[in-house]
């Protein structure tokens, strides 16, 4: 092995080493005064010293900024940590380098890469160990060494077939529960008994792979047991007050069915919800969470989160092309003292940095613009950060409906190789996190490679356009087990696990079947197309393998048969797998006494309050994140996430053109308010829907062509209060969808977001519902933004302001304890306002529109003013309101409101749109650079903007 070290010349900065240095500081380690790093390359083969030097000079090191060294640096100068991939783990850089070296005419046998870090300072052994394990090496795939290390040339261990049977038929209750726990099956006793009954009837014991497959299919993650359960709603005395059969069917699905929109083309049954875009095209949208992996390994968890959700629309209909990503995060307080972070959890700032980098690196590499998002902070997210990743995609309308494979179709596995990463991801995400999970479930974190996924996308779209496959789905949670299991539900399948390409030798048949290794898609390909489709993949260096055939039945019923080489290693009845899960009944309660928020004393002046709300983490500018995301790739950007005179003001929704050359667009936006969820989950959910819709309407979306998505992140719903809150929120989703005539088309839930600390406490996250909206924009040239445009223009307030401060940011920053009187959402009135506003925007009567959300009118006015680089002068005398309290008028968070700028000559025509609705001129845009509201607020736009931008000026 020839070793080449590539170092940055001392005259240039090394951002990688600097990043590591700052992360070391975040770990609280002060002894390190500097970090240097080198990239390591190991070249195996008969290379002359001259060859090695030529490769180093011409390929590996940048001649201007880097220098190289052949052989190892001395280890005694500093504290050394070397990080190397474990033997056999796929190394994309090495694979690229190997090909490149061969292109140079140098005969190399193999290449490995690694990284060397040198820590300067008086660093203790413990500290070095901490830095290596917490920061530098991912235990799933990497090893670390405290001196120069040369990787061995061997290739992992081989696997010898050993078919494992798991005795279940004779177990008692305790035995069944123990089996579930020891096997990480996360199944309850009723479910274990159903499995036991099935195998008793079969007259045999299950194989391990069968049990794994049942556990994964029946997991909360894949089976959505809670949402499909029958609910007994009880009052505080335990009396049943309402019975709801199949919660999701009775609420969200039923609303969509009742609305029955002809432009909803593929709802709930596929990997993404799909609506019509125009006569030729359809757009799909899906939002997923990747919470548990992000808690353990923020970078890898978040990047595979985005990688996973991107595959959802790729696996919808016959495959869609992603054109926009969204991301919404929830973290603990980033200023939290390190000693307050519970053992087993990572510091929120570290989580946030890792998550943002993970989404950035994956999304940017895939070439999908990240156009919209939000970040919320609450201490209860410390052990369970939430990472919502969304993808919108476009596909021909003729290829957008749910497909099924035909018997005889080849099962083709496309993309990444299968490894031991991501084993038990689906079942793991169905349990609660504890302080020990970090080590126990490190294998559940997947490892992503965006370029592999990009290659898969490029080639799958070609194969789709040639009509070469009959069905496609992504290999997500549950891996092949889930994708083949779902596709073959009605017709069965035979699979040869020994044919699945592996990252390294040594995987058992069971591991191959359930691995959640990334960047894989499963296709059903008619036999006559197999040769052609394999050529398309091979032409662009995408691995694709026929691993079996759809269509297999036993005793006349569709079944799955698994082989490893020639041995039968598992057989499972599809009907039992998919329909055998006993539907649970869950107890729920939500019975709380109303508690009014106090009426705050009137103050002379609210300048400080305004600045405090602007700087509050939930409100403050997220420019630090947004700028790291490519939000313009693909050339469809119309309304960007940052708007205004200096291109740094807040945008309400994002607008993109998915079809180049067409002026039709798509608006994407979201609504969420976890701190209201605590107080009143029903009203909180209405607010989330209202906010998502306000945001798409504010930029020019068509409410009649808007669909929404739900993502529920909840605590443990076996606890009746959590379940009660979930029921209330689901009912609100139904009511809002029906009232606004806006259907849900897709959704996902992530439950059990609770963290067990080592002193036995449970931290449950706030009830968190994300509503994401996708809306067709008929003509993007009519779109508007929320930044003030011109002095002299009139400002109108739409929607009624009521005396409501419950759950508001005002009470929060003033340190006043809120009641549970969340402002009730007036669905009927808000619908009228939004429809009228939509008409006014389409008629080009609106110069600027900004929705009122956190911080109410004062914050919206401030944002409008400073992002336009102008000013506003507002009087509250005219505002449509039933509120008499000044604080409620300025900062109340009644839903359904907008601040709109109108040119004086268009005022009367604008007002005509709002006859009979709450709409009043309340002031005007000025060029004074001040935000003036009566005598109560007078702040310069510079001060307001500094407050807003200062919080995350990282």
């Amino acid at each position, binding site marked *: 092995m020839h070793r080449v070290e590539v170092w940055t010349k001392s005259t240039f900065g090394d951002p990688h080493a600097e990043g590591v240095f700052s992360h070391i500081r975040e770990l609280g380690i002060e002894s390190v005064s500097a970090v240097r790093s080198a990239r390591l390359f190991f070249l195996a083969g008969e290379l002359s010293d001259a060859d090695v030097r030529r490769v180093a000079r011409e390929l590996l090191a940048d*001649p201007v900024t880097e220098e190289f060294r052949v052989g190892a640096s001395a280890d005694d100068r500093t504290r050394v940590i070397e990080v190397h991939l474990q033997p056999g783990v796929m190394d994309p*850089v090495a694979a690229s*380098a190997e090909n490149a070296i061969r292109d140079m005419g140098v005969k190399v046998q193999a290449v490995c890469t690694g990284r060397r870090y040198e820590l300067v300072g008086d660093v203790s052994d413990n500290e070095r160990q901490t830095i290596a394990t917490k920061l530098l090496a991912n235990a799933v795939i990497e090893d670390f060494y405290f001196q120069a290390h040369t990787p061995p040339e061997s290739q992992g261990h081989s696997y010898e077939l050993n078919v494992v049977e798991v005795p279940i038929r004779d177990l008692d209750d305790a035995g069944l529960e123990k089996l579930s726990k020891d096997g990480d099956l996360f199944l309850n006793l009723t479910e274990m008994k159903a499995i036991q009954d099935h195998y008793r009837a079969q007259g045999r014991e299950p194989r391990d792979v069968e049990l794994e497959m049942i556990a994964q299919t029946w997991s909360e993650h894949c089976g959505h047991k809670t949402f499909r359960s029958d609910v007994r709603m009880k009052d505080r005395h335990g009396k049943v007050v309402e019975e709801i059969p199949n919660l999701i069917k009775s609420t969200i699905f039923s609303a969509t069915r009742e609305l029955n929109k002809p432009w909803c083309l593929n709802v709930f049954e596929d990997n993404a919800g799909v609506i019509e875009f125009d006569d030729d095209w359809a757009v799909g949208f899906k939002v997923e969470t990747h919470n548990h992996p992000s808690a353990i390994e923020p970078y890898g968890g978040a990047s595979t989160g985005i990688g996973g959700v991107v595959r959802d629309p790729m696996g919808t209909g016959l495959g869609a092309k992603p054109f926009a990503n969204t991301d919404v995060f929830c973290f603990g307080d980033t200023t939290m003292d390190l000693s307050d972070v519970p053992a087993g959890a990572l510091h929120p700032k570290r989580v946030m940095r890792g998550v943002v980098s993970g989404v950035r690196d994956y999304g940017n590499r895939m070439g999908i613009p990240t156009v919209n998002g939000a970040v919320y902070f609450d201490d209860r997210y410390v052990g369970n950060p939430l990472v919502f990743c969304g993808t919108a995609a476009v596909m021909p309308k003729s290829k957008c409906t749910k497909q099924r494979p035909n018997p005889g179709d080849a099962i083709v596995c496309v993309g990444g190789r299968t490894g031991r990463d991501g084993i038990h991801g689906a079942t793991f995400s169905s349990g609660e996190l504890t302080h020990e999970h970090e080590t126990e479930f490190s294998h559940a974190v997947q490892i992503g490679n*965006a370029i592999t996924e990009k290659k898969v996308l490029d080639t799958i779209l070609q194969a789709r356009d040639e009509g070469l496959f009959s069905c496609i789905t992504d290999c997500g949670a549950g891996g092949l087990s889930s994708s083949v299991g779902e596709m073959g539900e009605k017709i069965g399948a035979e699979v040869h696990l020994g044919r699945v390409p592996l990252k390294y030798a040594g995987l058992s048949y069971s591991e191959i079947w359930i691995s959640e290794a990334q960047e894989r898609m499963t296709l059903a390909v008619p036999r006559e197309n197999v040769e052609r489709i394999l050529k398309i993949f091979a032409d662009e260096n995408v691995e694709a393998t026929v691993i079996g055939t759809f269509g297999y039945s036993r005793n006349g019923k569709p079944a799955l048969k698994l082989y490893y080489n020639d041995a039968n290693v598992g057989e499972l009845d599809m009907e039992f797998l998919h329909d055998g899960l006993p539907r649970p009944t869950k107890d729920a309660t939500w019975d709380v006494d109303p508690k009014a928020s106090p009426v705050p004393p009137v103050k002379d002046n609210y300048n400080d309050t305004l600045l405090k709300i602007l700087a509050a983490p939930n409100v403050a500018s997220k420019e630090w994140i947004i700028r790291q995301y490519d939000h313009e790739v*693909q*050339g469809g950007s*119309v*309304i960007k996430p940052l708007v205004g*005179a200096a*291109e740094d003001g807040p945008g309400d929704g994002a607008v993109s053109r998915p079809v180049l050359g067409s002026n039709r667009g798509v608006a994407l936006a979201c609504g969420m308010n976890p701190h209201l969820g605590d107080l009143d989950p029903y009203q909180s959910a209405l607010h989330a829907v209202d906010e998502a819709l306000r945001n798409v309407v504010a930029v020019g979306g068509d409410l009649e062509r808007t669909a929404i998505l739900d993502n529920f992140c909840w605590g443990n719903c076996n606890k009746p209060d959590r379940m009660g809150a979930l029921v209330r929120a689901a009912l609100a989703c139904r009511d809002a969808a029906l009232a606004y005539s806006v259907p849900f088309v897709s959704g996902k839930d992530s439950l059990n977001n609770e963290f067990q600390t080592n002193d036995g406490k449970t931290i449950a996250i706030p009830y968190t519902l994300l509503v994401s909206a996708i809306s067709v924009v008929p003509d993007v040239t009519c779109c508007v933004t929320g930044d003030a445009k011109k002095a002299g223009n009139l400002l109108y307030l739409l929607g009624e302001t009521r005396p409501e401060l419950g759950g508001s940011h005002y009470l929060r920053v003033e340190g006043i304890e809120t009641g549970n009187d969340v402002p009730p959402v007036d669905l009927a009135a808000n619908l009228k306002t939004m429809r009228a506003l939509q008409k006014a925007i389409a008629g080009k009567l609106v110069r600027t529109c900004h929705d009122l959300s956190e911080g109410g009118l004062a914050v919206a006015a401030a944002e409008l003013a400073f992002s336009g680089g102008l000013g506003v002068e507002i009087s509250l005398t005219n505002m449509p309101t039933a509120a008499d309290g000044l604080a409620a008028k300025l900062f109340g968070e009644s839903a359904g409101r907008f601040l709109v700028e109108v040119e004086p000559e268009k005022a009367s025509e604008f007002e005509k749109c709002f006859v009979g609705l709450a709409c009043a001129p309340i002031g005007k845009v000025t060029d004074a650079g001040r935000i003036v509201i009566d005598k109560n607020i007078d702040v310069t736009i510079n001060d307001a903007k500094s407050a807003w931008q200062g919080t995350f000026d990282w």
Partner: protein
Amino acid sequence: MMNIRALVLRAAGTNCDVETAYALQQAGFSADRVHVNRLMENPGMLGDFQFMVVPGGFSYGDDVAAGKILANQMLHRLAEPLNQFVEDGKLILGICNGFQVLIKSGLLPWGHVEPSSAGADATLAWNDCGQFVDRWVHLSCDSDKCVFLPRGEVIALPIAHGEGKFVPRDESILTKLQSADQVALRYCDESGHVGGFANPNGSVDDIAGICDPTGRVMGLMPHPERFIEITHHPQWTRRNIPRADGGIFFQRAFQYLCRK
């Protein structure tokens, strides 16, 4: 209309090829997206095209270094046809990752693919801020000979990169580039003042793009294909945007080749 053909070169990880091809078509080109594997199989096909664009993205995941692997393929598999392409008076444009590829293959700054000297005189290093940045910048068009640019104008384009800091090997290289009129684009403010806060990545001499000694091979970090519609501009809802500046690059290339 003349049929002038443009080749948009793509590889694993290229991700701006579709909109670049679209921008070329809007300017009058017939544009084909061609995978580098096809070009390596049949290098002669390059002769069918008059313009080659290496678009943005993360070719080969930026493995080893940004643009390096694709550049290596050019150096060792495509050197002859590429050098012929330049000699024939044709045009090459590298955008963002494509600029990195052109620098590392030797096509820039000196217009010649040559393994022993490629990349020796200039590089694109990590941004001073150490991270990826997406924002709009103003650019001063400073070269007379660069066929893609209207000399003397100030234009607006977006950047989106992590490694875009242009660094010549030393002062003498910079002087050579300047005196040969090869410094094509420089970061400036709206009124055309070069440098200061307008420089988003720490590029030496505020350089955003350069051309070869003939002016027919150009590379730049900003993305012209992302400003070919008025609605691409971040301020189109605020004020009248008279022109989509990115379109100029492709239109001027088309006009140049038509004249030829």
